[in-house]
């Protein structure tokens, strides 16, 4: 297993710069919706949603082969949000992609809304698996990838995990089985923001070095800057084309990325912004849009 540090694959794609520029802008749109919807609901998880915004934007607007008009299309790429509490970022991507109206984002966590506090497959179009209990989404992704292999389908299964989530034992049961079945149709992306509910991940329960751990489990790994869109896109495209082993992208991220007062602050794991904080957040994100 090669699994090298900060290396990224250099690609000679003439459209890449344009693509990256578009995705960067789109990611800021995603961030804008995230803070607005969590403010509206006065409940939800902004920190882990914002840290995953660039990765999720690249997935939904470049990588995933999905059809909003036919959410359960059998040949679609699967996506599992194993860190289910970050569903605001997912709901935004699904809405912007056309799975449901963008206005519906205002119903997050409200009575009888399709946008539940954690993702529910039977309620929200585009949600392939119910998640919210950490570690379990990743293990479900194993089953989806096994089905794809068994049926000789060409789709890939992408799972986004948090770094704190790696503390769950079931993650390693799943990692081992991906190796056994040579699930090269499986891509795990770790949103490695080093912050969990109670504090810094490396103090609560250290889980690094993640690359060495996954390599020992037979995976190919890449460590990237999860906010550098060029690196995010390159790594995801490499993962999409990769064959022979399951693929793990360890994305170095900042929890709350894009809103200065939320960045790397423990308290913003699961707290909504006030009116004043929202105004400040919008100002900063819109600044980034220009």
């Amino acid at each position: 297993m090669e699994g090298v540090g900060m290396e990224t694959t250099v690609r000679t794609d003439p459209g890449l710069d344009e693509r990256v520029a578009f995705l960067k802008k789109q990611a800021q749109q995603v961030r804008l919706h995230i803070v607005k919807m969590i403010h509206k609901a006065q409940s939800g998880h902004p920190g882990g949603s914002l840290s995953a915004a660039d990765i999720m934007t690249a997935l939904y607007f470049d990588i995933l082969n999905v059809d909003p008009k036919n959410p359960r299309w059998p040949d679609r790429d699967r996506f599992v949000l194993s860190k289910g509490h970050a569903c605001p970022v997912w709901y935004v991507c699904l809405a912007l992609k056309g799975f449901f109206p963008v206005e519906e984002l205002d119903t997050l966590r409200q009575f009888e809304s399709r946008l539940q506090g954690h993702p529910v497959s039977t309620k929200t179009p585009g949600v392939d698996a119910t998640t919210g209990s950490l570690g379990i989404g990743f293990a479900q992704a194993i089953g989806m990838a096994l089905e794809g292999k068994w049926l000789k389908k060409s789709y890939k299964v992408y799972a986004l995990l948090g770094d704190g989530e790696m503390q769950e034992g079931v993650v390693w049961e799943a990692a081992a089985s991906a190796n056994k079945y040579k699930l090269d149709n499986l891509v795990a992306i770790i949103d490695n923001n080093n912050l969990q509910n109670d504090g810094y991940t490396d103090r609560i329960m250290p889980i690094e070095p993640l690359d060495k751990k996954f390599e020992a489990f037979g995976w190919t790994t890449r460590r990237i800057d999860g906010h550098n869109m060029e690196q995010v896109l390159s790594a995801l495209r490499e993962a999409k084309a990769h064959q022979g082993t399951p693929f793990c992208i360890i994305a170095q991220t900042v929890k709350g990325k894009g809103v200065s007062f939320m960045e790397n602050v423990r308290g913003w794991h699961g707290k909504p912004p006030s009116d004043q904080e929202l105004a400040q957040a919008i100002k900063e994100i819109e600044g980034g849009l220009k």
Partner: protein
Amino acid sequence: MIVGNMEKRGGTQMAELKEKVQLRKADSPTRKSFSERMVEYGEIDKEFVVFESDIGYSTYSYLFGDKYPDRYFNMGIAELGTMAAAAGMAADGRTVIVSGYGVFLTMRAVEVVRSFICYPHLNVKILSSHGGLTAAIDGVTHQATEDIAYMSTLPDMKVLAPCDTYAAKAAFDIAVQTPGPVFTRLMRDPLWDIYTEKDTFRLGGSKVLRRGEHITLVSYGDIVFQALEAADLLAKDGIEAEVIDMYSVKPFDGETLLDSARRTKAVLVAENHQKRNGLGYEIGTFLLKNYPWGKMGSKPLKFDHLGLEDTFGESGNYFKVIDKYGISGRAIAEAARRLLSSSDR
């Protein structure tokens, strides 16, 4: 569908049902019968798959793996990950059988069963061996004496507990033909057979195995045989016990139960499970609500419930252990006599 074919036999057959039920030594435990049917069914339905967590040679799921290696996934000693992977495989509607020991599948993995199988209404069917004290010899860590409580409590979950070879094979068919999650409790060791290939079973059904006027004995799984033995013992004292095999634990056949209770005015539930939150609790609540109290003449309904009394089991010979914990034929007969001789007030 035929509900407990005894009803179908009608009046002339009633006498027959008062006679001793013939027990035939079973060739295989229900865990094996279920797996054998799974192999047969694998030929009929090529779409379902089986997940195992390294006890395939115990649950006999290996029989399926030998025949259909590409549809058999041995996920290692990892019940939680296995259950979750099964949910992933079932996400788009596929039927997935998960095979294992009751304690691990229903307790270690219960949250996955709840939130990621029952909640999304997935077609995951749990083949659960070593139900109750049928794993007596293995000791408490391997005795699933709370499985019915855990599984019955989960919304959307259906629960089956067949007692013999034929009921176990039928349970497989019911499980795969019923939409959504189904849990089937199976036994470690072979006991007896009472049914034949002609017997039919259904979700929510039961079987009246013996007719009697004085008391209704309700049980499921291995304790059905003990209830039959109790009925034999009681007959010697002139007490005629009606014996119901409540093989469908959730939903259970309230209609047949109520019909019987109206006639006998005494119900005794015996189960190889904790009393608390077992079938007896369900039946007790059901009768409180549905029994025509005060409308049936002077006699009120008498009720009792046998099972583990807020205690764990232990290692040892199955028959000795179930007797010690009060669910053997002898213990059931004794409890029945006690119940019938107790004063109405």
